């Protein structure tokens, strides 16, 4: 039977290849190597969450009615009998209560949306802290950044679709923010809502955005993102044998096909499990949208909290001065513009442009394929932690009512505390993180020069007690000495020998300042001379036990290589 299947497969392969020359692609992709590390799975989770969103989303489109026509509820859910609502809300109830499994799919869709955004953000943090955005991957960083923004857009448009009280209020806040935009705000609001808020157009329009425009853009950018990952080949963590010119890993087929493919099912399983046990967005409890009621303690989806927090944090009056100005009869609402547009704008701009900012400071023009250990770039790591803290503080403020009732604190005290904290904690955490990184670097130096503490104390003849240190093996040493030791940029003088001002000096000067900020203060890796001297000093050879172990490992290794060779040969003979 096997032979039959094989010949059928060969026949099909031949048929397709003669029409597409796919053989070349398969040859190229099948044995492509991917380095192995748990942190490389974060992007995968985002991808899988998106696939789950597509699958569950298509299910939902079969039942959701994107319309704001009024109906009076007639369905089985007693509490809502006769209540006026839009078809959008009514169809969400119907999906939940009258379509078997419909509620489950709604929950799967919503949970995977939360996971999607969370995975994108953690993935972005991984890329940031390991420096995977450096040349040649800057453009892919930008694509990833756009995907993050699109994910927020997808989430928000989807969240608004059921037209319940919560999502309607969310839209009203958006409307208020848009109206705060000088000059054209009111017109943008009219454009979006098809007239006066809330109108009857917003749900159908959001629907088009949610199921067509945004997912199509996401899909296209994911394609581009992954194409570039293949083109660049994956980065790898530092270690023996790993350089900027090679890639060490396992082949796509079969290892990653099985691991990554399998992982998709695991992510799906986890989402399905959570969705079947934990209710999310029970819109039947909230009721249909009505501009009048609202209750405290209700939360938007977590990824919106940071904007909500910023809006809460910004006072309307600051030391007796208004933050809404009336100039020549026109109104400028800084209390809305700053938290909802300016601060997020700057925050996102820094993220988007970060690869270039750091490249100006390093002046590094080479391709970088070996990742940084976060400790080895203390300033970058510090900036990352500071930005995360900033974000987290806004998220906390965004749920300050929950925090207040949880810890029995006064709401206003939390806000006032955070109004100060937002200025103090991020810089402080930058400084602390930088110190910790440099401390770890010093510890690394220490280890390279003096070895591991063995825990054994011996007494010298002269009565002194010392602890025996075991030297690091060559892999451990290599990891700790082989990292880029960037120094502040040197730039040419402002004036040339004839006293003429040089063009581009100011720009260079800026880059130099930036560079000093990054690299003035640094811990240098151990040099060969220092290492030699330390070795001399200790003069411990490798222990006998260590050597025995190494020999054992080598032997096993040889045996295995042998076996793989045999299998490969057997495989080749089959063909």
């Amino acid at each position: 039977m096997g032979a039959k299947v094989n010949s059928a497969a060969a026949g099909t392969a031949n048929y397709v290849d003669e029409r597409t020359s796919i053989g070349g692609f398969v040859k190229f992709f099948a044995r492509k190597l991917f380095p192995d590390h748990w942190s490389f799975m974060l992007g995968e989770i985002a991808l899988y969450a998106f696939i789950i969103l597509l699958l569950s989303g298509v299910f939902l489109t079969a039942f959701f009615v994107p319309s704001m026509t009024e109906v009076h509820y007639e369905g089985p859910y007693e509490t809502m009998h006769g209540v006026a609502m839009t078809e959008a809300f009514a169809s969400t109830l119907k999906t939940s209560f009258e379509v078997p499994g419909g509620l489950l799919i709604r929950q799967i869709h919503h949970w995977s949306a939360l996971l999607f955004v969370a995975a994108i953000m953690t993935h972005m943090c991984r890329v940031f802290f390991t420096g995977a955005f450096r040349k040649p991957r800057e453009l892919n960083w930008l694509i990833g950044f756009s995907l993050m923004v699109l994910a927020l857009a997808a989430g928000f448009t989807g969240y608004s679709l059921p037209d319940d009280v919560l999502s309607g209020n969310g839209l009203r806040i958006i409307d208020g923010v848009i109206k705060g935009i000088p000059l054209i705000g009111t017109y943008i609001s009219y454009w979006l809502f098809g007239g006066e808020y809330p109108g009857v157009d917003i749900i159908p329009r959001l629907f088009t955005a949610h199921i067509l425009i945004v997912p199509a853009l996401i899909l296209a950018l994911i394609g581009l993102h992954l194409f570039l990952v293949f083109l660049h080949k994956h980065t790898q963590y530092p270690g023996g044998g790993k350089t900027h010119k090679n890639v060490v890993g396992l082949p796509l087929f079969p290892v990653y096909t099985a691991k990554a493919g399998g992982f998709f099912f695991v992510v799906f399983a986890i989402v399905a499990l959570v969705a079947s046990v934990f209710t999310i967005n029970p819109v039947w409890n909230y009721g249909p949208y009505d501009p009048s009621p609202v209750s405290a303690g209700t939360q938007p989806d977590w990824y919106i909290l940071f904007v909500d927090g910023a809006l809460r944090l910004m006072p309307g009056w600051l030391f007796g001065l208004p933050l809404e100005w009336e100039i020549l009869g026109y109104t400028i609402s800084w209390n809305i513009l700053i938290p909802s547009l300016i601060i997020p704008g700057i925050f996102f701009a820094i993220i988007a442009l970060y690869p270039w900012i750091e490249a100006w400071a390093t002046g590094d023009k080479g391709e970088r394929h070996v990742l940084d250990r976060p400790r080895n770039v203390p300033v970058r790591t510090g900036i990352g932690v500071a930005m995360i803290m900033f974000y987290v503080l806004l998220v906390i403020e965004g749920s300050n009512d929950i925090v207040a009732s949880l810890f029995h604190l006064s709401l206003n005290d939390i806000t006032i505390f955070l109004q100060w904290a937002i200025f103090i904690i991020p810089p402080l955490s930058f400084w602390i993180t930088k110190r910790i990184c440099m401390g770890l670097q010093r510890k690394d130096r220490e280890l390279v020069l003096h070895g591991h503490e063995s825990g054994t104390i011996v007494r010298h003849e002269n009565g002194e007690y010392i602890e025996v240190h075991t030297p690091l093996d060559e892999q451990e040493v290599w990891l700790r000495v082989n990292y880029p030791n960037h120094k502040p940029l040197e730039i040419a003088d402002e004036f040339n020998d004839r006293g003429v001002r040089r063009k581009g000096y100011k720009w260079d000067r800026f880059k130099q300042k930036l560079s000093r900020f990054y690299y003035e203060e640094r811990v240098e890796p151990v040099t060969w001379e220092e290492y030699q001297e330390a070795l001399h000093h200790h003069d411990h050879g490798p222990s006998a036990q260590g050597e025995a172990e190494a020999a054992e490992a080598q032997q096993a290794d040889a045996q295995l290589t042998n076996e793989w060779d045999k299998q490969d040969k057997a495989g080749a003979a089959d063909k």
Partner: protein
Amino acid sequence: MSTPENTPENEPQEGFVDPGLADHRPRRADVEPKANKRAERQVAALFGLSVVGTVIALWAYFTKDAGDGGDVATIQSVNMWIGLGIALAMAGIGFGAIHWAKTLMRDHEMVEERHELRSSDEAREGAIQNLKDGAEDSGIGSTGTKRRSVLKGSLITAVAIAPLAVLVPQIGNMGGDWNISKFRHTLWGPGVRLARDPDGELIKASDVTMGSVFHVIPEGLNDLDHHHKMVEKAKAVVLLVRLDPADMKPVAGREDWSFDGIIAYSKICTHVGCPVALYEQQTHHLLCPCHQSTFDVADGAKVVFGPAKRPLPQLPIAVDDEGYIVAQNDFDEPIGASYWDRLKGDGSSADVEEGSH
């Protein structure tokens, strides 16, 4: 190979040598046939578990009775069983495949060279040459005769403005009638009675006891069709409270806007427009749940905390002959969030009650 520019400057520290890949340690299943067989059986068992999951999901779908759909707990239990089935079906495949990869497939890392991404000089020159040739063929490239620059210019102009033909009508149609001065008017006007939200029952001054709170809509709102009802309600909702007149600080020019301690304010927050719904009797504070702007009802609804800057607009009220509370007039300013020209007139005189719907 790599150009000088592309050589990472911080090459390995002098003196130290790259020890090469760490030694590979074989796994149990690599060397012990027994362990190998065991791993294989485990993988097969996991795949088998997945089949069980699928069966559970289908069993739940076909046999679990959701009733008529009116009972949330029953619905949730049906969905839970289907969900657990799906979870098991997926988990079996997933963990099976991963276990297979981890125990039985190669785990001995391989090495591949990277190639610089920059195209070779040759390819670059070829690309430039091709573009030059193409430009030559089109005639744009030929050294700037006047006719060609006209051609270029007209093409660029045409392409640049052509989208307007599509975009202007589309965007133009999206804003409805673009009459943004509608923000300034609500259903309130002289003599409009105050009614309870949501049932529309009218409110008599005698119903409003000390310390009570009413959520209020204008009389007749509920007779509108859904669309207009939503639009008008979003602007017209009001909160009515009664305080001890002794506690109230008078606001200049509004002395007769309230009645015997009964006072009405717009319920739409002046921050970004949430309904301000939480009233605290003791302090006379009104709290907006969205971003916690706090307004002092006893003091002209001034902001005492939070991101809002302006007091809530006050609705001037009186009591008519039959004892019902009525509005004296519409609000004297646009309600809700601030916007650019909210203080500018809309051209129509303020007392004309026109075109709000």
